């Protein structure tokens, strides 16, 4: 009895301490993860900027002819960024006075505070690495002089993919932490849940990590909200254009995830095929998120006589669908949406099916460079990616293409913050976002612009079609970039 009493007393103490910590209301550990970088900023410019420029130049020199054009566009950017860094720091002293008078919430003369929410735990925790990679790139930018001498601090919080957690966390960042803007928020429902709030507070909601068409389409109603990646409907329009041109007699069977994501894809395909849709789509089957087995849907699709198979799924069910089709002896032309398209997923499907024929010739679209493609190993963008990963996010996986995505959006963000000028304001950022026109994003394939205009917010609208070749463990492009800008209809 005495023993258990002592335990109870200790425990009581511990729990009351915990309660005290909670009820005090201060976010004890809420200090921005990036906060530590501010100190070393200027000193690091001299040391770390130089190797960055050198390696980029070296990469450009050794790059294969096919990527040389890309190298030509990217290398100067990196080099000039590095070269420009030193004068910027010096100039910051002059511009600082002006910046102080005109800058906005979350901006001081030497810091910019950004907020964001993403799933770091819960069912979608695999996406969390996007924010980590973006943060790594922002650290790299900080170490190369920051933006007009200001160091970026990116504070991202875990909403576990649950809108009911996104709302209070977003309010915390806007009202308590006083962030300049919200960046990289992930999840369609989560970001929808704070879109009204952020727009009413006039806080930019920048580069939401979702392809839901609404975020790009409803910019007149939500002028502070911006997407980045190609919208799902845009991607299926690209497939539709390709099919109409190259396989006009295809009989299409579709499997799609029964949520906004799958339905958005299906909508795009149906609209893209226009008045031929009813004739060409012979069957469509859906499955719920997390469905353990898709074989009954696959059998129905096979028996419908379809010779072309569209898979609009998240990676895990996509793999199941491909394997099930192969095991059912069905050999259609397979089109796989970009979310499930990365090579590791196809390798997993090949392994599960036990035969490379299961994945041979699968068609998907590409716009982001690929960190594991041996042919791109010397690409300066991928080299920069690997360099940033090694130095600022060593525990991250280089072969996870979500990291390339994170850095791609971070590059555009830095671009926008630079264009907004030394007197950094939310209005200036909106202006820069509305007129974003980037042709040199090193993480996006050359020739694909990252572009907005005041009347069009579909940011990335071009993608290549590519066919998977299991002998190369990679895709080979089969088309020029197809552009669907101006063709996406909403709702």
């Amino acid at each position, binding site marked *: 009895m005495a023993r258990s009493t002592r335990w109870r007393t200790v*425990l009581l103490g511990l729990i009351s301490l915990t309660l005290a910590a909670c009820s005090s209301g201060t976010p004890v550990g809420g200090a921005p993860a990036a906060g530590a970088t501010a100190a070393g900023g200027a000193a690091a410019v001299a040391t770390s900027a130089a190797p960055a420029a050198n390696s980029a130049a070296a990469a450009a020199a050794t790059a294969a002819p096919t990527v040389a054009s890309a190298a030509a566009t990217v290398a100067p950017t990196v080099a000039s960024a590095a070269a420009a860094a030193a004068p910027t720091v010096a100039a910051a002293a002059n511009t600082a006075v002006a910046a102080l008078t005109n800058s906005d919430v979350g901006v001081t003369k030497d810091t910019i505070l950004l907020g964001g929410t993403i799933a770091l735990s819960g069912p979608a925790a695999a996406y969390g690495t996007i924010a980590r990679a973006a943060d790594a790139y922002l650290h790299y930018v900080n170490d190369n002089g920051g933006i007009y001498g200001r160091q970026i601090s990116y504070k991202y919080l875990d909403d576990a993919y649950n809108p009911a957690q996104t709302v209070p966390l977003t309010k915390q960042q806007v009202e308590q932490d006083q962030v300049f803007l919200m960046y990289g928020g992930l999840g369609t*429902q989560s970001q929808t849940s704070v879109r*009204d709030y952020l727009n009413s507070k006039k806080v930019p909601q920048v580069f939401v990590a979702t392809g839901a068409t609404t975020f790009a389409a409803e910019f007149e109603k939500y002028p502070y909200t911006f997407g980045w990646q190609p919208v799902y409907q845009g991607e299926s329009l690209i497939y539709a254009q390709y099919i109409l041109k190259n396989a006009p007699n295809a009989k299409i069977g579709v499997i799609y995830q029964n949520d906004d994501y799958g339905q958005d894809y299906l909508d795009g395909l149906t609209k893209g095929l226009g008045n031929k849709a009813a004739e060409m789509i012979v069957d469509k089957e859906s499955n719920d998120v997390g469905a353990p087995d898709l074989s009954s849907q696959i059998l129905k699709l096979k028996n419908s006589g379809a010779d072309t198979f569209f898979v609009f799924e998240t990676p895990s069910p996509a793999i199941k669908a491909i394997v099930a089709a192969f095991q059912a002896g069905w050999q259609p032309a397979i089109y796989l949406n970009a979310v499930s398209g990365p090579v590791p997923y196809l390798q997993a499907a090949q392994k599960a099916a036990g035969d490379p024929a299961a994945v041979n010739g699968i068609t998907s679209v590409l716009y982001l460079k690929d960190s594991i493609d041996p042919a791109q190993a010397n690409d300066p963008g991928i080299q920069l990616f690997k360099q940033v990963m090694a130095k600022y996010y060593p525990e991250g996986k280089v072969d996870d293409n979500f990291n390339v995505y994170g850095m791609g959006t971070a590059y555009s963000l830095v671009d926008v913050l630079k264009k907004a000028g030394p007197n950094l304001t939310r209005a200036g950022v909106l202006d820069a976002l509305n007129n974003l026109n980037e042709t040199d994003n090193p993480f996006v394939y050359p020739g694909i612009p990252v572009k907005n205009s005041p009347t069009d917010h579909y940011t990335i609208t071009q993608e290549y079609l590519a066919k998977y070749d299991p002998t190369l463990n990679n895709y080979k492009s089969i088309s020029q970039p197809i552009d669907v800008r101006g063709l996406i209809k909403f709702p």
Partner: protein
Amino acid sequence: MRSPLTRWLPVAALLIALALPFALSGFQTLELAYALIFAIAILGLNILTGFSGQISLGHGAFLAIGAFTTAIGVQRLHLPYLATIPIAALLCGLLGWVIGAGAGRLEGIYLGLATFALGVATPDLLKKQTSLTGGVKGISLPPVTSPIAALSDDQYFYLLCLAIGGGLFVLAANMLGDRTGRAWRAVRDGELAAAAFGVNVGYYKTLAFALSAALAGVAGSLYGLATAFVSTDAFPFQLSIALLVGAVVGGIGSIGGALVGGLLTEFLPIYAQQMLLPINKQLANAAPGAVQGVLLLVVLGLARGGVAGLVGDAYYRLIRANRTTTEGVTDGEINTLAYRPSRPD
């Protein structure tokens, strides 16, 4: 037995609760409102598990139904949002009665499994009714605005939750101290014995299920209003588990425990994660789930009465210690004499 603790603690808690929104920032007030909402849901679980001895692994389902009732009421039927709260309670209560009447025939693990199925299936079922629930796109609600100029929107909403929650807590406390509460406890401790004393076991079990579902419906309705956006992703199966863990850690079978459980459910995952983030990112990722698990193990192993039980124990020990020292009783005797079981009955 109205000891000074049971008399003054609620009053003190209420005073602090009234003062808090004026001392905290807007978002912190909103977080506290979420904690109150969880406390209401946990109060329901407490009645169900702590007092009538049944278990529910699927109370998130009733929260979801409550939230969608409010969303549909406000957005499609243009009802004032306050009117949707009792409708949500009634609807969930009825549903709880029907489910409870069926599930009441199940015992222990089987009831757990049946409610588990309910918790897992409900969000998907709601998702299918696209025309009614907005399907995967969810339903946006206009934010609750304060009709009183002196109060901000967040302060008003928090005080609304406090008023509703306070009322429900008083109601529950009265009920549990009354014949209904005694009947539930009798059923919990031995159905045969309870029946022998003339307690209608089936009726009281069903009543507990219906009431706890109604409370969850109120909580869900407020949860939807707090988020101003109702969608199925907000009611994952983990929510049901988090509520049950909150109930157990707070103190199952104790009214005050529900309040503690609400606070823990809201704040512990967030702050555990934010505290661990500078130390280790991977650890921080696992924090919300891990903290729940560890606390549950600790409570089950060392303090069955949860936080509320511990506070009660400590308090009684303190009084006894003061009293007995004047009467000249030794420490060892205090330990054997003064020990009270954590369950307050």
